């Protein structure tokens, strides 16, 4: 109990401090415009009025946290899910391409890792290029990929998911290669004394040993594939998805809308990572490993 409290208390303090600083900046950043308006209207104003009014703008420079919370509440709970203005609708669009991309990336990553570990030529020729592939700012060229794939008639979920795939296969490859190579030489020798084949060694020893590494990589991969999905939504002409909400918000100066899309993306990332963690915890426990 005390250890849990000593863990939560510092985090809560930091979060509270961020909130205080945020409110401070809300007043500071929005006040020039507000003061300007007071002076035009010739209203006598006190500090209290200023603080109250800066937090009630329609299009503030920086919205206050409670404004964002209200906006999120309005666009999730009070809107029908089918509505174009519902964040749940946009979130689910993003979520579906995130998950598809994550699944494809994980499968691709595992496949590459297995071939790299089992074949030396693959290891030597592929590994440097896999690392190089991630120094290319793929997110930056994501819009081009989307537009070009659209031009050949491939649109909707798949192009966005491909960007997520490109981003998420990398941590999986790196983690799985490490994991498949992690068995103790002693264990490998033991398997050899049993005269086990390579296939046997793979199924009974290497694959189980790699599972903790796989889950650690999947946590990184799912967060990064959400980023890929959001950026992938930017150029589709702002149709649907959290990325489209961001772009539409920036076109029309709807800062509250931008921030609420951002915060919901953040919550989604947190939930996705937590789900993977829970699955990892349960699986590792059932495998008899300490999670």
């Amino acid at each position, binding site marked *: 109990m005390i250890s849990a409290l000593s863990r939560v208390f510092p985090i809560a303090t930091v979060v509270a401090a961020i909130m205080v600083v945020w409110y401070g900046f809300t007043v500071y950043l929005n006040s020039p415009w507000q003061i300007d308006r007071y002076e035009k209207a010739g209203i006598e104003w006190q500090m209290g009025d200023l603080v109250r009014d800066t937090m009630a703008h329609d299009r503030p420079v920086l919205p206050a946290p409670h404004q964002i919370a209200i906006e999120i509440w309005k666009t999730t709970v009070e809107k029908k899910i089918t509505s174009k203005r519902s964040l749940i609708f946009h979130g689910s669009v993003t979520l579906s391409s995130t998950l598809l991309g994550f699944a494809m990336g994980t499968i691709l990553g595992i496949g590459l890792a297995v071939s790299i570990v089992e074949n030396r030529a693959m290891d030597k020729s592929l590994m440097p290029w896999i690392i190089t592939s991630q120094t290319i700012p793929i997110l930056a060229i994501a819009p081009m990929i989307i537009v070009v794939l659209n031009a050949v008639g491939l649109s909707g979920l798949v192009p966005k998911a491909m960007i997520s795939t490109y981003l998420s296969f990398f941590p999986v490859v790196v983690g799985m290669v490490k994991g498949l190579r992690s068995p103790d030489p002693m264990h490998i020798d033991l398997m050899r004394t049993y005269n086990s084949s390579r296939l046997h060694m793979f199924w009974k020893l290497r694959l189980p040993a790699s599972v903790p590494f796989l889950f650690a990589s999947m946590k990184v991969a799912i967060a990064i594939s959400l980023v890929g999905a959001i950026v992938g939504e930017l150029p589709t002409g702002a149709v649907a998805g959290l990325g489209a909400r961001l772009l539409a918000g920036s076109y029309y100066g709807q800062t509250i809308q931008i921030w609420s899309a951002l915060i919901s*993306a953040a919550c989604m990332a947190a939930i996705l990572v937590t789900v993977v963690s829970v699955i990892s915890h349960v699986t590792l426990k059932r495998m008899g490993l300490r999670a």
Partner: protein
Amino acid sequence: MTGFQRTIASLGGAAGLAAMVLAITDLGTSGIGLILGGILLAGVGLRHRTGVMPQARLDLAASLGGMVLLLSMLDGDMPAASWPLLIACWLVGWLAVEKSLAARDMSPTMSSIVSLAVPVFFGAWIIFVWEMLTVGLQVPTVLLPPPSMIAVRFAESTSILWADFQQTVIKAALSGYIIGCGSAFIIAILIDRVPFLQRGLLPVGNFISALPIVGIAPIMVMWFGFDWQSKAAVVVVMTFFPMLVNTVAGLQATQAMERDLLRTYASSYFQLLLKLRLPTAAPFIFNALKINSTLALIGAIVAEFFGTPIVGLGFRISTEVGRMNVDMVWAEIVVAALAGSLSYGLLSLLEKQVTFWHPSNRRKIQ
């Protein structure tokens, strides 16, 4: 030869034979070159059955010869026999790589040359196949331009590319990277003195590093204007948290024994920091610097999609896509990839120099 090598060799030989047969039956369009190429690769691939001249050199030479032959006749109307020949070249090239990696009696210099040459050979193959497929199958250039076309466009528009490079990489990404990493480094050292802040900030920092921070780009463009300052601001925020989290973790990586030793020497806080803790943290810090070098480029380019002066990698990419000048877009991608790979390579070199003591950098005992 292992069973796997034998399989590749036989498959390569069979593909060579197929190329030869196809070329003979379709002599009108194929010509004599393809027949000879087919015979050469079939012979090289199938020679393991006779056991003469098993060297990898011969496989490599045959593969390269086939590639040159294919390149020399590359146009939009490739004879059917060239596709099995391409497959034969690929398999025989793979065989050469397999054999040279499996060779046991190699000098250290030779083996380091091989381990450098293999990825280069692989990269060359990717570009070669790309060129073959896009030109040979007449893939629309809008979808995927051939590498030669990109190279020509790159050479023609170096001045535009250089201006974009300066705007996006030097002004926006580099300045943001330095400010973001530098401030995170200083704050990490300050936080390190307060355990309470450590326990509070680390989970929050970890959480924020997993967030889609690129999303703040439109907000930063609203706050700091269209020029490079807003892009640099995005880069600062993106690079800050990975650096913070890694530096704090690195500063905690010292062992109690080592700290005790320095305490018995009566070392001060700064001596402890400079002589023990920062060197121990160096691998973590370099890890963050490497992650951030890619993040910085991404941040700077993506931020340009939300508003920019008429120069910059992101601006050029989004406008040239709109005009369907895909070769120009790819030239910009080459610039971005070069910038990303070069900065990553430089950081890796620097890391090797700084963390020469780390187990992963020690020379392996054979």
